[in-house]
């Protein structure tokens, strides 16, 4: 590592922050683009499981809330792609790489939403897991990303309330509704436990070394379990893992998440990957004329 790069590394490791116009090592820039682009892709793909339920939402209020949430998430992807663009990768290129299957997005958005119970579990627990990751980005060494995360976390706080409200309403409803929530939890527990990634030691995680994120994968998972398992239990729901317990030191023990499944899914082989990317491709083609018309009219 050359001296300038070493100096940069020490700077970010001691809490220093970097602006777009500052010098940065090529490796740091490449890691930032990859990480932030995947986040932008996940926001954009993350609306699809919920979009599928806008037409089937049980009440008008739920329909409106879901629509607003979809607008928020698409807005997040726009803000995040802006950050990527300033680092040197154009938004059009990000979208191309996404729909061609070259770029990745989060594992949880590759799965189907079978019932309204899934919508509740996604809005509550998937968002909760995501907020834990996102809060660890508020101190990101790349300042423009850290700043935009503030706004995103603020909006996510509404989403998690919306999710909890959906779940509580169903839990206070009929046996059939409670059953839907339990079944959805059973379906989502595996992907949720995989969500924060393999338990690589943070000292060996390049994203932590460069202080792009401020906590390790294992820590994030513990924080998720600590915050949400008690909330799941108090509703009378069962977590589908017989080995889940808190040990005497306050750390959660659990069955090893299926890392093979995680890898298989995020490399483009999830149950809904092809269908959802196909929808993105189709809408991109269908709306081509809108982009052309806007640019022509604005010129």
């Amino acid at each position, binding site marked *: 590592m050359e001296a300038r790069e070493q100096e940069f590394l020490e700077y970010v490791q001691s809490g220093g922050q970097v602006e777009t*116009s500052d010098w940065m090592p090529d490796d740091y820039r490449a890691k930032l683009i990859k990480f932030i682009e995947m986040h932008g892709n996940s926001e954009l793909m993350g609306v699809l499981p919920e979009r599928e339920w806008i037409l089937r939402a049980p009440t008008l209020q739920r329909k409106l809330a879901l629509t607003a949430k979809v607008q928020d998430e698409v807005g997040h992807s726009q*803000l995040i792609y*802006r950050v990527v663009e300033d680092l040197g990768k154009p*938004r059009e290129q990000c979208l191309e790489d996404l729909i061609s299957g070259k770029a990745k997005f989060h594992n949880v958005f590759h799965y189907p939403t079978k019932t309204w119970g899934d919508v509740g579990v996604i809005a509550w627990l998937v968002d909760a897991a995501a907020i834990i990751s996102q809060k660890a980005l508020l101190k990101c060494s790349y300042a423009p990303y850290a700043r935009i995360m503030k*706004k995103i976390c603020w*909006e996510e706080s509404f989403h998690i309330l919306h999710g909890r409200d959906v779940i509580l309403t169903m839990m206070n409803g009929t046996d059939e509704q409670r059953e839907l929530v339990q079944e959805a939890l059973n379906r989502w527990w595996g992907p949720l436990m995989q969500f924060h990634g393999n338990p690589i030691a943070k000292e060996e995680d390049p994203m932590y070394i460069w202080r792009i994120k401020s906590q390790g994968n294992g820590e994030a998972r513990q924080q998720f379990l600590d915050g949400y398992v008690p909330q799941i239990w108090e509703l009378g729901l069962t977590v589908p893992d017989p080995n889940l317990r808190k040990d005497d030191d306050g750390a959660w023990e659990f069955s090893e998440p299926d890392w093979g499944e995680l890898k298989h899914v995020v490399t483009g082989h999830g149950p809904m990957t092809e269908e959802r990317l196909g929808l993105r491709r189709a809408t991109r083609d269908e709306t081509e004329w809108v982009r052309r018309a806007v640019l022509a009219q*604005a*010129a």
Partner: protein
Amino acid sequence: MIYEVFRQERKGQPFTHAGSVEAPNGEYAESYAREQFGRRGESVALWVVPRSAVHEIDEFVDELERNYHRVDGYPLKEKLKEARERAGTAGDR
């Protein structure tokens, strides 16, 4: 084109940088900025400025060592100690 957006949270407060939007002209930039940074009542006003109109200055060279208009230009500790010794009040505190 890139437009930088500044927002004011409440009347009387300073405008702070909110983020940026990409738009083909000022009119679209305004409508994108309104959607991104104002739709939940989080702002009472926005400034939408083409990035090229923002002149950034990030070097401040103090050639003349003009520390006389800053707090660090007045290190009084040593002088106070000497003055107290001169006045014979150094042990009074």
